[in-house]
């Protein structure tokens, strides 16, 4: 049974004539990592807002079609979203990073020991234990992004929605986030992530959804990121793109490792 189902969903922002999503259908199974790729304005962020039940409920606008989410039940993590604007996601109620990360779990009404365990695990997963006593308002951009991800993950969501979660992270931080995504999927969490870090996807995503102008163009395995039409749209992995520019012939390798194997043949 899918955790998230979108059936023929169209969505219009307030006062916009053109829909930001058109006739989008997608299902995410428990334990599945789905990556949304597309150029700016393609609709990936909007799809996440719809899946999070923020659009139209909070942002306004109009929706057609059906969105269905099956959580794990009351008092358990439901759907959590990490927005591309981390500073808008602070509770404003916490004077330390630890309390900030505890804010979500506390609102789920968990017992204190469970909250403490979840917060400590989350801080460790993002390697920000040393920031626990800091005031969240004084963090650097990348530190803040890690704190926001930690706060959402601490709620043990059944559906995790991520919008450019590694945009401000250093390579170690990005690696931590991608490993965490795989680990959470291993525990049955469904993850939908919009990202421009295309080179990370062969290792991270089970399926890739290519969006363009509010429409789903293709859904497929990460190998999609080496297909000719995807290359033309500027959404191939770097290795596929370089291989194609060098006119070495399709199918293009996706990753450095694949390229190396082809090269040595």
């Amino acid at each position, binding site marked *: 049974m899918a955790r998230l189902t979108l059936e023929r969903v169209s969505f219009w922002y307030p006062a*916009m004539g053109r829909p930001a999503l058109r006739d989008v259908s997608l299902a995410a199974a428990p334990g599945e990592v789905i990556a949304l790729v*597309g*150029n*700016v*304005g393609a609709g990936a*962020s909007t799809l996440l807002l719809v899946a999070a039940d923020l659009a139209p409920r909070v942002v306004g606008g109009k929706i057609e079609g059906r969105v269905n989410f099956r959580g794990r039940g009351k008092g358990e993590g439901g759907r959590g979203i990490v927005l*591309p*604007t981390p*500073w808008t996601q602070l509770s404003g109620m916490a004077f330390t990073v630890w309390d900030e990360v505890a804010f979500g779990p506390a609102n789920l009404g968990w017992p204190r020991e469970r909250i403490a365990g979840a917060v400590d695990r989350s801080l460790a997963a993002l390697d920000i234990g040393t920031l626990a006593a800091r005031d969240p308002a*004084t*963090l*650097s*951009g*990348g*530190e803040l*992004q*890690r704190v926001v991800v930690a706060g959402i993950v601490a709620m043990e969501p059944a559906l995790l929605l991520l919008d*450019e979660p590694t*945009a*401000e*992270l*250093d*390579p*170690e*931080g*990005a690696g931590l986030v991608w490993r965490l995504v795989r680990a959470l999927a291993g525990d049955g969490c469904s993850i939908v992530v919009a990202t*421009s870090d295309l*080179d990370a996807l062969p290792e991270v995503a089970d399926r890739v959804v290519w969006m363009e102008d509010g429409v789903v163009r293709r859904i497929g395995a990460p190998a999609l990121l080496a297909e000719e039409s995807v290359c033309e749209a*500027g*959404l191939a*992995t*770097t*290795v596929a*793109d*370089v*291989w194609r*520019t*060098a*006119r*070495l*012939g399709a199918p293009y390798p996706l990753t*450095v490792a694949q*390229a*190396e194997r*082809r*090269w040595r*043949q």
Partner: protein
Amino acid sequence: MAAVNAELRFEHVSFSYGTVPALRDVSFSLAPGERAALLGRNGAGKSTVLRLVTGLVHPAEGTVSVGDWDTRGRAPESLARRVGSVFQHADQQLFARSLRDDVAFGPRALGLAAAEIARRVDTALAALELTAHAAEHPYDLPPAFRKLAALAGALALEPAVLVLDEPTAGLDRPLRARVARALADSAAAGVVVLVATHDLAFAAEVLERSLVLDRGRVAWDAPLAALLTSSERLAPLGLAPPAGAALSAALDLPGRPVRERDVAHALARVAAARGPV
């Protein structure tokens, strides 16, 4: 383009936020037209360096100067005559009713004549291919376009020094290419370009020098290509080679190119020499 050319110079600069030390004894200088990447882990001090350049904060010890101006005692409004900046989350900092008005804000604050403001705004919008969006409300555009608009606002100051914090975060390939072209043009006109970024692929395309901060200290200051071709140098600084450079190393391409186009050319040449792949 730049009204004046000026060198950017840090001399033994230290800075703390209260009890949190951010920079220790940082020294470097960038000549007019130089393009440098400011690299390092989250929290290494990159944004702090940029804040010092713009006068948002001032050194506790040492000196930051832009040409013959010491930033000490100068407010950001005064430094804006020489320094253009775009900070992380710049897409949240627009407030005018149209993109055009937002880009015009800086030149207007400099007290320039209307015709000169219009010329600079047109030039800056064109440099980032935003002319078609000039009349639109910033919040009707995706955040990535607002980020480009913030950069256009900085270009419209026609500064001697341009400092940018994570300018490509959340941008797709076509938009990154626009930023790359605009920065290359600025540098060609003598502007000092300093970019704090984790996007090493982007850095490889446009930037030539690399300054790496490690816990507030300058741990590396040398040509970027020399850094990107060496995993042994990158790893201890918390950096990883971008895919193009990694491919170049894995296939042992001659000259170890790091820019994607150069990697493709080298690949094509070697492949042609050794027959079909």
